[in-house]
């Protein structure tokens, strides 16, 4: 549990100490700013249109990253995130097609509940079957993606225009899109109360060291279960975000988000061994990952390089993180 919070370094002041205590809050945003600067440099006519493209493209990925982050912090992994996004996406599209705005909002509450229920199913199986979480969520992922195809056999459905404009529209100025507001709001509404509560502490505790947490009287099973429920909830927000930005439900859309979301989480400073990381890093990393193909189009470079660059970036960031930890350990 101690490793969740780095030791206080007395005498070190201001931003340096803040950066060390909250690497996700400083590193990734700086990285994003650098990327944005590069983008503007290679594409001087960067406008609010591009900012909107970025926010719309990044929202579902950012929520997939958020879903993965909660589970990984608790020491688990969820390979069904993409499929849960697909199910909630097609469920929303199929039910909202002929609904009015008010009904669509009510239906999204229902879809969120179903997302949480799918997460709960993941959690129950992981906790009670004692089968490794990789196997369980890979399998449930197959089941959810089959369910998505049963709900909508091919892309279709829809939602009322006013509902879609919550994500695709803009807010106050054309630079601030609904997708950005919605992302920040949903992550803040779900994550901040959790993080401030006892549950937040317990998530980090079981992720750092399950045995130590258990000996300290933590209900490890209940905490793991709740992590998966939160993962399902974030996935459902992602599914609703996906319909807001595309206007339809697509049963196969989710498959891209499982691994990309995991990549964003790792890039955002979440340790795959659990217990470390926050929510800001992964969400901002989703923006960085969305900017890569955009920059390649502006530079007119074969977009297949995007995968190479994304992979290289993750390796470099993970290595840099390891180096920092190593240096810190030597100093002690």
């Amino acid at each position, binding site marked *: 549990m101690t490793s969740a919070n780095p030791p206080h370094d007395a005498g070190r002041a201001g931003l340096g100490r803040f950066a060390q205590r909250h690497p996700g809050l400083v590193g990734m945003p700086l990285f994003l700013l*650098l990327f944005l*600067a*590069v983008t*503007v*440099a*290679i*594409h*001087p*006519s*960067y*406008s609010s*249109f*591009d900012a*909107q*493209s970025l926010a*719309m*493209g990044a929202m*579902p990925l950012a929520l997939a990253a958020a879903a993965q982050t909660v589970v990984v912090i608790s020491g688990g992994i969820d390979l069904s995130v993409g499929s849960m996004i697909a199910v909630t996406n097609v469920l929303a599209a199929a039910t909202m097609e002929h609904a009015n705005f008010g009904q669509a909002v009510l239906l999204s509450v229902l879809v969120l509940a179903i997302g949480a229920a799918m997460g709960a199913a993941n959690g129950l199986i992981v906790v009670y079957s004692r089968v490794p979480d990789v196997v369980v969520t890979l399998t449930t992922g197959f089941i959810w993606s089959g369910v998505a195809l049963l709900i909508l*056999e*091919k*892309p*279709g459905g*829809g939602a009322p225009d006013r509902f879609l404009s919550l994500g*695709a529209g803009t807010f106050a100025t054309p630079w601030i899109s609904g997708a950005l507001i919605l992302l920040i709001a949903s992550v803040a509404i779900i994550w901040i109360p959790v993080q401030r509560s006892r549950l937040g502490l317990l998530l980090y505790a079981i992720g750092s060291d399950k045995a130590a947490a258990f000996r300290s009287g933590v209900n490890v099973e209940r905490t793991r279960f709740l992590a998966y429920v939160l993962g399902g909830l974030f996935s459902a927000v992602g599914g609703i975000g*996906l319909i807001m*930005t*595309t*206007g*339809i439900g*697509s049963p*196969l*859309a989710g498959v*891209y988000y499982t691994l990309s979301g995991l990549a964003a989480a790792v890039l955002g400073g979440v340790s795959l061994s659990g217990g470390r990381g926050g929510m800001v890093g992964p969400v901002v990393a989703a923006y960085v990952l*969305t900017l890569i*193909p*955009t920059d390649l*189009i*502006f*530079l*007119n*470079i*074969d*977009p*297949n390089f*995007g995968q190479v660059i994304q992979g290289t970036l993750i390796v470099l960031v993970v290595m840099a993180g390891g180096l920092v930890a190593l240096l810190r350990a030597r100093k002690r």
Partner: protein
Amino acid sequence: MKKDILYACLAFGAMTVACGGPVPGLAADGQYVVGVSNTLIGNGWREEMVCSIKAEALASGKVSKIVLANRNGGPSEQIADLRNLISAGVDIIILNPSDRKALDPVIKQALAKHIVVVAVDQAVSAPGAYVLSNDQVAYGREGAEALFKALGGKGNVVEMRGIDGVPADADRHEGFEQALKKYPNVKVVASVFTGWSPDKGSQQIKDLLGSGKRIDGVWTSGIDSMIVDAYKSANVKFVPVVGADNNGFIAQMINDKDNGLTAIAVTNPPAVGGAGLGLALGILSGKKEPRVVHLTPRVYTNANARGMDWAKSVYDPKVDPTYPVYSGIPPYTSYTPAQEKACKGPGEA
């Protein structure tokens, strides 16, 4: 060289002025910038589609640059790619749509910026966009009719379809059924989904051959040369086979004619990409074009000289057997097969 620029940009970020470069879309002397959006990579047919766009761009002499947005994805990724192409200042967008309806809002935005948008291979519902695609209902109907005629209007046939739930498969099946209505003495003894996978189709025909059912003819949705191979390895007398314009099947069409094979090839050219560009360039030079162009597939059989001549003219021993043969779609394309094979657009070395 472009890679060097990228590295320089990554290294120096905002400080580097040289990263700006020329603004796309402002090409000189009537030259156009073309954006291409494709969301299925690693597929032979799609690769050739992109090559045909590059070849037509080069052959037309009216295109200064192609901006390629090419990655695996769904509607969400394609919307992002199309928005980026709009922002990159292209004059023409050629896209193979991942969805009929989802791209409408972004296509509307492109049209508002006076970009000519052509959807190829599959349709989009956005009014104002042009659609150029192969007529898949006719693909199923024409090939099946040629087969039933070759059988003398009666006999047992096998229908080897593509992927369940895919529009092209549903359309081809509809065409197959239309042909069947005209030939009441033809009986379908088996109908299977090959998934357009060579291995799966190969196994299915082996099972059918082993089942003892009498089969007088085989209609396929493109898993073709594997059927002929299965007949060869089972040492069974050939029956007439309908395939696509795939290189391996064309080879059999030519070489196994003397061994008693009747092969019927139905064209489904990936050159719809290049044809879409040809259509767009025509519009920009002031021509009137219909909003929707359905290309009727051509049917060739090795039973006559016309079919054999065609087969010999398109067959290329250097091309992979599962790749479609290279061909243009006049009058929309003007490139040579060599240009399509080279797969180089303007400015590419």
